């Protein structure tokens, strides 16, 4: 039996605007026990009267050192009418505490000692735990070949756009491809469309290379992509999925 996961006090030290509806919160958690890319944390808010609300958020990056101790990053997508995400994005002041608990989840994780090729398929904010894997790969000096296929509504909705452009150029062995579902950038070849067989086939790995596949996004997206991968001949045990429900 492992020790209970306890609530820890975190403080907001930095906030980065990623898109008009998503921000990355950098939290300082001095006694953070460490985590693997793909894991998530629970964040708990408490109102003056003691009312509490908690939600899960994916960790977006490996743990970092700061002057006040360990730092973790969460990317929060605003859920319309949500209870927690609008607070974290619009109200939560820098320097103030919040409670976090984790890391949680031992299945949808990538371990830097893995050498198999990796296919990451993200839909919308489902890219967040996949970005944690991309970042951890580079941080660990891993040479596992990575392909990221990122489905997003419009160019303005791309999370980590500049960093992905830079990493696609500089991180040796990382390929990044996009599917735009509503509006494609200027000069894009092809029409906006939902992800399909041709996308997964051209930007994925052949099944005989036995890649590890990680699929994260809304339920319909994950169902579609996981079915395509199995249809293409990937072993179901090597297709790991994480579905985003409403987590307002």
């Amino acid at each position, binding site marked *: *039996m492992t020790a209970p996961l306890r*609530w820890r006090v975190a403080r907001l030290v930095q906030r980065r605007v990623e898109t008009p509806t998503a921000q990355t919160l950098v939290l300082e958690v001095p006694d953070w026990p460490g985590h693997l890319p793909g894991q998530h944390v629970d964040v708990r808010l408490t109102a003056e009267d003691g009312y509490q609300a908690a939600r899960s958020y994916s960790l977006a990056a490996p743990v970092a050192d700061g002057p006040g101790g360990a730092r973790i990053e969460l990317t929060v997508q605003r859920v319309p009418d949500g209870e927690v995400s609008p*607070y974290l994005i619009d109200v939560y002041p820098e320097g103030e505490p919040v409670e976090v608990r984790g890391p*949680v989840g031992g299945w949808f994780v990538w371990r830097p000692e893995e050498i198999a090729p990796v296919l990451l398929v993200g839909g919308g904010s489902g890219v967040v735990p996949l970005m944690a894997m991309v970042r951890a790969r580079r941080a660990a000096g891993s040479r596992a070949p990575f392909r990221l296929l990122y489905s997003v509504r419009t160019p303005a909705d791309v999370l980590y756009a500049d960093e992905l452009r830079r990493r696609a150029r500089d991180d040796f062995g990382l390929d990044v491809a996009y599917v735009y579902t509503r509006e494609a950038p200027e000069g894009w070849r092809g029409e906006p469309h939902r992800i399909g067989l041709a996308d997964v086939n051209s930007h994925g790995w052949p099944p005989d290379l036995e890649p590890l596949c990680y699929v994260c996004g809304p339920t319909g997206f994950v169902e579609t992509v996981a079915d395509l991968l199995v249809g293409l001949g990937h072993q179901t045990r090597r297709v*790991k999925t994480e579905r985003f*429900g409403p987590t307002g």
Partner: protein
Amino acid sequence: MGIVSPGFQGRPRSAEPALPPGQYLTEDFPVLSAGPTPKVPLETWEFVISTETDAEFRWSWDELMALPQETPTMDIHCVTRWSKRDTDWQGVSLDVLLDGIDTAAHYAQAHSYGGYTTNLPLADLRGGRAWVAHTYDGGPLPAEHGGPARLLVPHLYFWKSAKWVRGIRLTTTDQPGFWETAGYHDYGDPWREQRYQGD
């Protein structure tokens, strides 16, 4: 009480019956699963209960449908914090399926098409609290929600309600399942907020 978050109000406090701690209501039916959705044809579907002495009891789809059916309406609680009220199901009570099976086992491990497993005390499958459910909201249970049939044990967190259930092994020792070996609680009582190991 936790640390107060400056300016956090939260949703209006509800006069509705309380949810388990840390849960919020949803009108949707979110999906939690770890891999691709298995597609199981009804012609070859079967449900098997095996005992600690390797005795096996099997039901085909038609045989399951011929058993007495119940229509529980239950609140369900997912460990990812959503709860859904008054979900309508149809299925066969585990009391019916376990009736007449001779066992000294104290534990059960449910196993699924696709390889998923989850464990629970055998006592939690008895007493009108657990079903093999094949119908949701008046229609066939959709595959992404566990169809053709899933275990339904709504008094525990919903990962215990194994989707695509194929059978139950009755064992004398507790055999942790898929999420239980990945850090989630062995029992998973939502009212005691047993989410993760050690809770």
